[in-house]
């Protein structure tokens, strides 16, 4: 009896070890391309065309030097700046308008608010490609094409943040609000001093998603921007692919520069990001 029991435990352990090994192997497969990107950016072109191994034999900064050294030809600093300006502005805009709207719809006694909220949530199902032509025509009329405004202002219309914050605000106990009201707080005061401080995790999740979504947006800048010095990093980097087709080192170095900020954000906020994604599936 004893021996059989011991045998069972050891097979269970063995099974767990095998599964862990499988997970580790798959994890390496998923991370390897990104590692290759970051490492290969430091290789000379000859080593890229003939792969010898993961690590560069003769590590070089030549790719980065060329990118940063020719701002006329490759305005990568402009692209970096444009991307930062656009993504930060979008994040600020989305956080402010979405939190105010979600507060009104979740916590205030408004006529027809169910209808309004329902309408907003329904647009979550609208595929983005359908807005391409009409938004382009509207931006054209506003004179915003080929300016950062074309990418910032329309981004404030997305329903995701209103939905996310609305669901979170609903969970805040009514008593806290009542206590503040007794102390003479106005509706704006309650929003600022009760709702917002209690909603930091939800606001952080929304901020991270919005920033990364805007940073990585490709179709928007591709359609709404025209001049090379107005580009964001993803569109600028994609330009490399066509202009420097046979210069892989340069293209990979530019890709590495574009990826690094997102990787840093991911490493810091990994738990927030993954929890946020997981939640989208569990809420009906």
């Amino acid at each position, binding site marked *: 009896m004893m021996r059989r029991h011991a045998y069972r435990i050891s097979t269970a352990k063995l099974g*767990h070890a095998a*599964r862990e090994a499988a997970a580790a192997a*798959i*994890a*390496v497969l*998923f*991370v390897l*391309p990104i590692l290759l990107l970051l490492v290969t950016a430091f290789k000379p072109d000859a080593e*890229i065309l003939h*792969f010898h191994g993961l690590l560069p034999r003769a590590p070089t900064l030549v790719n980065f030097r060329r990118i940063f050294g020719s701002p006329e030809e490759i305005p990568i600093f402009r692209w970096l700046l444009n991307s930062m300006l656009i993504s930060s502005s979008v994040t600020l805009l989305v956080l*402010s308008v*979405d939190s105010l*709207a979600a507060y*009104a*719809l979740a916590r205030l006694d*408004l*006529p027809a608010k169910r209808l*309004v909220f329902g309408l907003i949530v329904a*647009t979550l199902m*609208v*595929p983005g*490609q*359908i*807005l*391409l*032509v*009409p*938004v382009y*025509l*509207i931006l054209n009329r506003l004179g915003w094409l080929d300016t950062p405004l074309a990418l910032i202002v*329309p981004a404030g*219309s*997305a329903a995701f943040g*209103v939905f996310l914050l609305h669901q979170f605000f609903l969970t805040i106990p009514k008593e806290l609000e009542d206590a503040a009201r007794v102390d003479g707080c106005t*509706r704006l005061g309650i929003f600022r001093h009760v709702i917002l401080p209690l909603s930091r995790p939800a606001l952080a999740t929304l901020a991270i998603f919005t920033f*990364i979504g805007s*940073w*990585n*947006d*490709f*179709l928007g800048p591709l359609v709404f921007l025209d001049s090379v010095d107005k580009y964001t*990093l*993803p569109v600028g*980097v*994609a330009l*490399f*692919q066509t202009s420097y087709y046979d210069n*892989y080192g340069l*293209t*990979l170095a530019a890709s590495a520069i*574009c*990826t690094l900020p*997102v990787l840093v954000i991911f490493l810091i906020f*990994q738990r927030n990001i*993954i929890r946020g*994604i*997981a939640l*989208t*599936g*569990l809420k009906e």
Partner: protein
Amino acid sequence: MRRLSGYLFATPYLILFSAFLVAPLLYGLAVSLFRWDLLTTRPPTFVAAGNYAEAVADPYFRKALAVTLEFVALATPTTVALALLLAALLESLRRQTLYRAAFFVPTMLTISVAGILWRWFFNTDFGLLNSGLARFGVSVPWLTDTRFAMPSIVLMTLWWTVGGPTVILLAGLQNIPRQFLEAASIDGAGGFTRFRTITLPLLRPVLLFVVAMNVIGAFQVFGQTFIVTRGGPELATRVLVQYIYETAFNNYRMGYSAAMSWLLFAVIALVTAVLLGLLRER
């Protein structure tokens, strides 16, 4: 009055929502009924359903629709199956955080970077995949052969997008009460039986969500093919969104482009409805 004044808080958002979501939707529907060419000075002319009729008869539209359906048929089942497998694997481990992060991290990349990377891997002459296969004397025309191009795009898509569904399904698996599985174990149910009779039925709502989101996303595929293959070879990977994009922004035929995007929306809505109906019944 006081009740209505609460809407002041929502006004900034509602203005943006109306101007850049509701208005464009209606405007786009209206545009789709006009012949609207930005390259000519001719004013837009009303053609009723003319653009829609043109699309249905247009061989390029049909080809792009077929290519899109091929992508959906290949990418969605493999993505969901792999995500389910990875989620079950993760769920059976004591330490999950690191592996979960590794499966998810490709999702963080912008499509131009992911595309540039895989163009390099797939390159017939000096790509990493063929460098590895050269040892066995094999050279695969990953992107240059009409038969291989789409599966290659799907392979890259798996790597780039499977992390999201994996994380969602993992959360779903963790929500299943342990007692159910333990009770089945005591009744003598093996691992596979437990998965089929308990895990899968309880996971159905989450699985439905994942399948639906994935189908909707797959129909709108654009970045992968636009960056990696530019729609080639011989239009073998030119999907609908790329054709819609080119019609609007290379040929400036706004009305026709808008009509095709509404047709794509209709296809997405139809397929999603059928799929949800099928999955819900069983």
